[in-house]
Each structure stands twice: as structure tokens, then as C-alpha cells.
């Protein structure tokens, strides 16, 4: 196999941010921002979310959280639970022994450039403590 390029950071992202409306071309390009900040994506479905799919996503988050990955959530203002199905997802995560990840909520009613900067600052500022990084990431 090969040298591994993974970034060790993952963002839970609502469908509405993975697939922004073509009618709003000036909106923050969340996927591009996540890529630039070296975050992989776990896409959350639009409401109503199949409960089994949320459980499957929670299983994946738990696996990451237990093995040295930094997980955050990026929500969107104006959607129920910010598009994150937070009440259901947080309960599923706690059931799996995982503290729900830190959240950042994007405001679509504010100027996009500033929102993009704030999102990048949030993403760049978050990671696991250094000793956890050393333990898992070599």
C-alpha cells in the first residue's frame, strides 16, 4: 500500500449544504471550504430522515470518534435542527458513548464572504488534543 493522505477531520453536513440551490450562486461553497480545510464529509439526509439511516450515520461517527478523528457538525440557519437532525442524532451518539460534536451554524441571511471566513476559522481551529493525535495518527 502507500503513504496515507487522510486529514483525520470530518464534518457532518446537511444535504442542503452539500447540494446548495443553483438559485443562490453567491452562497458559501461549503464543500470547497471543507476540502480546503482538509475535512471529509458525512452527509446528512434532508428531513424527514429515515431513522435507520441516522443510526447508520451515528455508527460511523462513533467509529471515527473512538479512533482519533476530529468530528464537527456544520448546520444551516433556517432549517429545523439546522439540518442536522440534532435531537435524534445526539441521542444516537450518546447511546454509542460519543459526546455530540461541536457545531457551527452557517447564516444564509448574512454576507457570504464573511460567513465563509467564519466557517473556515471554525474548521481550522478545531482538532483533537495533541496527545490524542499522537496516540492514533502516528
Amino acid at each position: 500500500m502507500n503513504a496515507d493522505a487522510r486529514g483525520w477531520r470530518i464534518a457532518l453536513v446537511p444535504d442542503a449544504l452539500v447540494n446548495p440551490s443553483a438559485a443562490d450562486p453567491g452562497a458559501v461553497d461549503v464543500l470547497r471550504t471543507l476540502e480546503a480545510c482538509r475535512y471529509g464529509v458525512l452527509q446528512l439526509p434532508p428531513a424527514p430522515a429515515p431513522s435507520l439511516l441516522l443510526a447508520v450515520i451515528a455508527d460511523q461517527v462513533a467509529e471515527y470518534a473512538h479512533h482519533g478523528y476530529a468530528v464537527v457538525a456544520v448546520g444551516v440557519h433556517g432549517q429545523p435542527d439546522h439540518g442536522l437532525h440534532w435531537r435524534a442524532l445526539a441521542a444516537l451518539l450518546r447511546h454509542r458513548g460519543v459526546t455530540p460534536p461541536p457545531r457551527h451554524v452557517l447564516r444564509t441571511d448574512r454576507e457570504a464572504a464573511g460567513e465563509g471566513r467564519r466557517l473556515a476559522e471554525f474548521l481550522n481551529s478545531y482538532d483533537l488534543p495533541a496527545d490524542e493525535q499522537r496516540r492514533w495518527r502516528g
Partner: protein
Amino acid sequence: MDQGGRRKVALVASCLLNQNAKVCEGARYPAMVGPVVEALRRRGYTLQQLPCPELAFAGARRWWAVYEQYDTPAYRAHCRRLAQAIAPLIEQSLRRGDEVILIGLDGSPSTGVRFTSSKPEWGGRPNRPEDDWEIVARRGIWIEELEAELARRGLPPVPATGWALDMGRFDEAGARRDLEQFLDDRVAAAPGKRDDEAVNS
């Protein structure tokens, strides 16, 4: 989205949006596979990420494996559970008349579409001297189970291809050419869509 409200939907392997899902030493990008995302978005596809079957089954720190090692009743049952989790979204799209395609990961024992990795004698201590698996032309196990679940629901096969990430030597330019050819061929071959094309079984 066209005038009838139909969308172009690309079902994408989990690791195409999240390289952290890859097996140890298998991630080629820090975050996501940018060329795939770019090619799909440029052509107006919305993205639907599939769950990663290996991560939730064998874990984030799993060894790499071949098709035959994952071809067990327990792993297939796990894949069927994941397929049942995501199938309602796919069914909704197909019954609405959306154009749905699937982009898997060629060479993967789970997510391969055109090709998977095979070595029936692999097993035991993971100390093979080199990557000596073979590439064979068949689906990975997750794709087999996902397609079976869609068929159980009476849905038509979804046109599919794979990003050739796990084929041994990774050739990004070749993988990009393959993907773009697949996407552009679909545009060239598409007849005028009619209102009655939605799945109505």
C-alpha cells in the same frame, strides 16, 4: 433540475466525499476526491453519499482485504442493512423520475463497480510481501447488495461506474478521463425525457 422538477442525482461511494473512510494507507486525498466532486457538480448532479460498509463493520483501523475475505453471511447481512437504510432516498428519486447514477470505487472489495480485488488464498497474518491481489471484472459486495435491494423494491438498474482508486497503481488522469467519458456519454445518449418516464411499478 429540469423544467419538470427532475434532478440529476449521483450516488457516490462514501470515501469519494470522505477519504477518512479508506482502509489504512488507502487515502490518496486529505478530504474528498476533488476531481469527482468537480466533474459531477459541473454537470449539474446533486450528490448523495452512500454509507461506508467496511468502516462500520471492520472499523476505522481495519486491514485491507479482498472480495473473498468480505464474502461472508455476516458482512452481506450488514451490507443489506445499510442498503435498507439508504434505499428509501434512492427509491424516492427514481420514482420522481430523477436521473440517478452511481459512482463507486473500482478495485474495492466492497464498492467496486467495474472491478473488484480478488485473491481467494488471502488470509491469516497480513504479511503479504507485496500487494499481490488480482483485479477481476465484477461488483464489490456492497454494490451487489445495494443493487439487490433496489431490485427487490422493483426499481430499475442504476447506470454505474467506478473511480479507479483501488486498482493498484492509481492513475488520476486516467480515472478522470474514464469518469468524464461515462458522464458525457450519458448526455450524448439521453433521449428527450418524457413526463411518463418516472418509475411507476
